[in-house]
């Protein structure tokens, strides 16, 4: 057998191309070379980045080209045997005569990307109380003092809101309890959960509950109820006590100790996947990236969401928001990521959630469901807010703005307005129309469009205009800077690329 193989190998060596006679060469199958036809362009945007050009198509695929390649490409002169041509063809920036699959696949991807709107509203936020035991200077919802019971939701409002919730055609319904501190109105949470489950016996939707709480009031009875009704818990953890307790003061100054103890308490009753934490970046946080991340590791989390302050509520009133700009946050973000990479390199998987979200937008066709980066905006379409007083808002940010006496995004009141009025006659459609990046100045031709969105509430809050001037928009700078930073790693750093890929 060995000898036979050797003879045969020698025979093979004599053949020049290695192909037996009855087979055609690669040239025979090239559309361009056999038919002399040229390629046609598919829609794309581009932007100059560090001397090269970043090209993106409608669905977020990208290619980097040199200037002369870009020029040759758009003039249909690009060398069809080049690597860049292959990349442009594979990622649907061009198609060749006779090919239909590129258009079929591109439209499939576009439908997939927008499939989130097929479901319509899925996230329903119930502000069951605006009262809070904390007094955070950065509070974005402008909380009320603990004793002020007129800021609680009542049963009539809750029931009317639930009727509204089940009007959504969405198969998935998530009800999120927010505040203030929602556990200050625990009886109302229980009432809503039980009533929602009653309705759902007939509706049969995929129903889920979340409580966003500072955990101070968590006790065995609450946890038992959460366990029986499969309720998730989301809390706030800003870092070690030096940071957490200064960002989030409460009487007794023991917020950090309470939250850490109660995270474990929740975990021990509900299980490891039922609790998550969010951090808010204050000026104090900016110089302590490693300590904050260590705090999350120590508290048993395998990821963190690095979240800058939003321009609402006390964050504006107490001038917290002015204490740092995006540039400073971006430095903090990069420092944090550097440390997180080291943690991953040591063999421990730890994720930065915002990064993971952006990566999913860059490398997958599926929608992320993250309402802040959507076009059109998720306002009303993906999420809606029922305030304690029955007012309905298009998003969490809208009610934050309303607590600052600007009710521009109030859609109506649950006790007096119908579902139809709230969606069709409230001005919501106008807001949504003004959030379509495909038709918005500064966005429609932007190379970062597929990774971004346009938040009309944010731009209204910062520039008093739904659209805003994108050159002055931090929202815009944030997406661009982070995408560039991540693409740079994906292309030039194989070790960190593997880490980023594992987060997607």
């Amino acid at each position: 057998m060995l000898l036979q193989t050797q003879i045969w190998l020698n025979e093979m060596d004599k053949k020049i191309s290695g192909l037996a006679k009855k087979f055609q060469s690669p040239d025979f199958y090239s559309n361009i070379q056999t038919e002399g036809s040229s390629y046609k362009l598919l829609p794309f945007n581009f932007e100059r980045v560090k001397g090269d050009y970043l090209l993106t198509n409608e669905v977020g695929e990208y290619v980097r080209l040199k200037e002369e390649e870009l020029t040759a490409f758009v003039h249909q002169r690009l060398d069809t045997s080049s690597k860049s041509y292959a990349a442009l063809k594979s990622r649907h920036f061009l198609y060749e005569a006779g090919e239909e699959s590129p258009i079929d696949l591109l439209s499939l991807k576009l439908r997939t990307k927008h499939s989130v709107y097929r479901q319509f509203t899925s996230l329903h936020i119930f502000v069951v109380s605006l009262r809070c035991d904390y007094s955070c200077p950065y509070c974005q919802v402008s909380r009320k003092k603990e004793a002020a019971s007129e800021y609680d939701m009542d049963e009539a409002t809750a029931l009317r809101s639930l009727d509204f919730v089940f009007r959504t055609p969405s198969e998935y319904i998530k009800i999120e309890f927010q505040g203030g501190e929602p556990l200050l109105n625990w009886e109302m949470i229980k009432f809503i959960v039980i009533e929602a489950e009653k309705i759902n016996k007939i509706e049969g939707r995929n129903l889920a509950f979340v409580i966003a709480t500072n955990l101070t009031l968590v006790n065995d009875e609450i946890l038992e109820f959460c366990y029986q009704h499969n309720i998730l818990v989301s809390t706030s953890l800003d870092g070690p006590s030096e940071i957490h307790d200064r960002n989030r003061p409460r009487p007794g100054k023991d917020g950090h100790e309470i939250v850490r103890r109660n995270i474990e308490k929740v975990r021990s009753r509900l299980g490891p996947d039922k609790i998550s934490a969010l951090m808010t970046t204050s000026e104090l946080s900016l110089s302590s990236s490693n300590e904050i991340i260590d705090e999350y590791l120590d508290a048993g989390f395998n990821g963190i969401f690095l979240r800058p302050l939003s321009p609402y509520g006390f964050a504006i009133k107490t001038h917290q928001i002015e204490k740092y700009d995006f540039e400073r946050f971006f430095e903090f973000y990069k420092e944090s990521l550097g440390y997180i990479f080291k943690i991953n390199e040591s063999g421990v998987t730890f994720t930065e959630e915002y990064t993971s979200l952006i990566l999913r937008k860059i490398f997958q066709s599926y929608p992320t469901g993250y309402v802040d980066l959507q076009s059109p905006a998720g306002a009303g379409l993906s999420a809606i807010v029922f305030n304690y007083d029955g007012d309905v808002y298009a998003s969490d940010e809208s009610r934050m703005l309303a607590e600052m006496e600007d009710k521009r995004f109030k859609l109506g009141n649950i006790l007096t307005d119908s579902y139809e009025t709230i969606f069709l006659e409230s001005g919501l459609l106008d807001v949504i129309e003004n959030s379509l990046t495909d038709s918005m100045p500064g966005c429609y031709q932007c190379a970062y469009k597929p990774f971004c969105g346009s938040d009309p509430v944010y731009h209204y809050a910062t520039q008093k205009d739904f659209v805003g001037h994108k050159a002055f928009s931090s929202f815009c700078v944030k997406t661009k800077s982070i995408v560039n930073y991540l693409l740079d790693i994906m292309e030039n750093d194989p070790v960190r690329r593997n880490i980023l890929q594992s987060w997607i």
Partner: protein
Amino acid sequence: MIKLYSKECRFYNWEESPEPIILSVTENPHLPRVLAKKYAIVLDNVNDYPEDILSGYAAILSRQSIQDVRLSKFISLDPEFSYIKNGDVIRINAYANEIRVLFRVDSDHNSLLVTERCNSFCLMCSQPPRNVDDSYLIKDACDAIKCMPRSATSLGITGGEPTLLDDGFLEIVQAASSYLPETYLHILTNGRSFSDRANSRALKRIKHPNLMLGIPLYSDLSEQHDFIVQAKNAFEETIKGILNLRRDGVRVELRVVIHKQTYSRLPDLARFIARNLAFVEHVAFMGLELTGFTKANFKALWIDPHDYRNELDQACRILQASRVKTMIYNHQLCLLSEYSREFSVNSISDWKNEYLEKCTPCMRKNECGGFFSTGFSLTKTSDFIKPFMELEKMIPVKEIC
């Protein structure tokens, strides 16, 4: 290598020119006569049983050869066929002195070849197509399916290109659906026929409860795929076919054979799949089987798997990042990167899976993909085969967290 076809059996007392018959095998000599006539009985020693009991069976197979055979429809088996047992299915062609084993009850790798015709002409085809009228295989396949035990876990349909049988193809799937509803049916097809929506709809209408189509995709670039399958417009048709099957809810597995013409774009292909075809059930990266056309095109195709392990590693990572289930078939574990080893599956059909002598001391042989025993697959192997001498003492990262 287990023999599935033999002309070395001796046939006694068969009528002049009988039609080929497909029969289930039994080892039970006490079957009621009304059932016995539907079976071939296999026994070590036929002399242990009275002639009138045995004469009720459709064929009598003896593992031992005997002198002076008076029984009719008697066959003295090729010694290599002594494994044939209760529950197997065989095709007896007494006219040509042939027996083919169509189904082995002890195997998870049973497949039926339903045509030798093909509309592609792949550079590395292990079963080179022949343009012959083999439409009799349709009835054979349906008959064989009816003989198989309902408890069969899986069954493969292969060719040639099975869909070229048109209605015959649907008949076979229908037979499997009706007679083996619990059996996983895996069909190897180039998917091109399904570019016509009518064909994917017809397949959908059968409503086979556990069906998967294995469809090859060799490149993200149409001209490269077309070159490898030696058919213009094949990429277009295959992609359209996959999309139509998706619309009609038929599950698809993508198969990528890795060789010198495909390895360098593996990450690009993975990216293309992750972006465009992430809905497929899984992607299988497959090693080359050095038989059929691969022997003729050896120099154009052979690359040591060690030399493409980085590309394969990257491709796996890209697919994982998009949650596309990934498998590596036909690869020796020692040639894969540490990361990609976890995707390795021992997939070579049991009847043609072997190991080298130097693999004997290897501690991870049971996880290894092994070697094909066909063609030159065992004599031309990678230069980097190296047995694992001790189990790696790595703690999985998950446990650290």
